[in-house]
């Protein structure tokens, strides 16, 4: 398993952010994603950056872990930055690298886009780092509830989502197990020609599919045995509740966003 990749991973904790209602977290992040695009001055960017860093710190997850976990994304950020440097041709020419002109506008734009990108990813990964998948689906179900009026099967959608999320680690384990069993029978997943590597996937995929179907069948039976009949009249073990903490978070967030608008050019 790739331990370096943290997006989608949940780190248990007791911090302020961990204890917020998942609906609060999702909505605030939703608005953050929108408002990041309104920042247009150094100060407004600085405010958002400081705010995100403070939120990240308050989760009490080791910063080194978050930074390391974002490694695959760093590559994307640097890539965007480089593309901007090459493509944008605004402002005056600052330097020439190997005869290639670098414009001041390109530098500014590249930097602000990359920063925006970074903030988006940092902030959204904080959601999954501090919220269990179950909480997230519960929150989505509750947020989408109004859509029941137009006959959208909200409960079923949320259930599908939580089941798929629930089975990701199981499938990963299964993949690990089967690939080890096949490697012991002489399959080489890492070297050889492209064709032989594609062929090496078959002994992995077939057993994986078979066990996934089996699992689905067993799950369906187990759910029925325990009296599952869809969302109608079903009560929840963990009721979502907006508490003081959530109001506090919303107020704080609104203040930051208001500040950002004041600092805009």
């Amino acid at each position, binding site marked *: *398993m790739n*331990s370096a990749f943290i997006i989608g991973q949940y*780190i248990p904790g007791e911090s302020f952010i961990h204890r917020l209602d998942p609906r609060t977290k999702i909505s605030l992040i939703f608005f953050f994603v929108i408002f990041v695009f309104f920042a247009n001055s150094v100060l407004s960017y600085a405010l958002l950056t400081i705010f995100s860093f403070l939120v990240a710190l308050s989760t009490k*997850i*080791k910063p080194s*872990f978050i930074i390391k976990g974002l490694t695959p994304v760093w590559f994307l950020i640097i890539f965007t930055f480089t593309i901007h440097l090459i493509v944008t041709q605004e402002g005056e020419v600052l330097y020439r690298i190997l005869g290639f002109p670098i414009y001041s506008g390109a530098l500014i734009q590249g930097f602000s886009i990359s920063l925006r990108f970074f903030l988006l990813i940092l902030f959204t990964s904080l959601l999954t780092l501090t919220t269990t998948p179950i909480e997230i689906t519960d929150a989505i179900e509750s947020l989408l509830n109004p859509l029941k009026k137009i006959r959208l099967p909200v409960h079923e959608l949320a259930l599908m989502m939580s089941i798929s999320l629930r089975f990701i680690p199981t499938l990963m384990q299964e993949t690990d*197990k*089967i690939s*080890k*069993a*096949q*490697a*012991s*029978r*002489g*399959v*080489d997943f890492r070297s050889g020609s492209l064709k032989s590597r594609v062929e090496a996937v*078959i*002994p992995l995929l*077939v*057993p994986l599919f*078979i*066990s996934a179907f089996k699992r689905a069948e067993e799950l369906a039976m187990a759910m029925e045995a325990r009296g599952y009949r869809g969302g109608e009249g079903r009560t929840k073990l963990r009721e979502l509740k907006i508490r003081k903490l959530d109001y506090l978070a919303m107020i704080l967030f609104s203040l930051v966003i208001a500040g950002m608008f004041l600092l805009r050019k």
Partner: protein
Amino acid sequence: MDISFENVDYIYQPNSPFQFQALKNLSFEIKSGEFVAIVGHTGSGKSTVIQHLNGLLRPTHGKTKIGDFTLTSDHKPKDMKSLREQVGIVFQYPEHQLFEETVEKDISFGPANFGVATEQIKERVKTSIEAVGISTDLLNRSPFELSGGQMRRVAIAGVLAVEPKVLVLDEPTAGLDPKGRKEIMNMFYRLHKEKGLTTILVTHHMEDALKFSDKVIVLEKGTKYLEGSVQEVFSNQARLNKVQLDIPEILTVVKEINNRFGLSIDYQGQSLDELAVQVSVGLKGLKKHE
């Protein structure tokens, strides 16, 4: 093939919040041709040990030696395939690895990967399917049409067809009925004797450990807790109980009889009938005495 672990540590996902040390300073040796049982309750590190035996995992610290192959955290043998050819692993629920259209193709999969000639593969398929007690009529059937027990046997045949020198068995009889369990364990023991294999059996079943193995290694929290001959390890009931293990039932029975009637019967693999004779002889002796 001689196998040795020297001060092996293994850490899963190091430097992350999920860091977990599965093996701690584990050292042991297994001589060529031995039948060794590794016991320990869930999470004691048994599966991690197994994966070190054919290089699926390499120690974080320390060294493993399997025959001529030496593995450390920064050194892996160039010829990993040859290591895997010589160490066959029957994983838990091996039937989950079946994937081919026919039983024959699935059994041939291993040998074909290791470059065995087609003619020879045919022969090996035949001998290994006979070894696991399945009729050759089933060779052209899909493995997914078979019963659970048959699938297990086919998967085992797939490992045997590679003709490894070391056979590693991870709970090979889990979920089988008593008859199937007996047949399969006897089959492994016969192969062990006939082909002079080195066999490593990971099990919860103390009965199997007692019946087949020359040596028992008890793992607890990733370290070696007890090691020794069957007699040595199973004479330590108190220590075994401490790690939620127990001595085999038959030993408990013999011990209880000895205690109750003041006998001193020594259990050395006698059958139940032989034991009964010993007990009755012992009891008559007592009566005469009175």
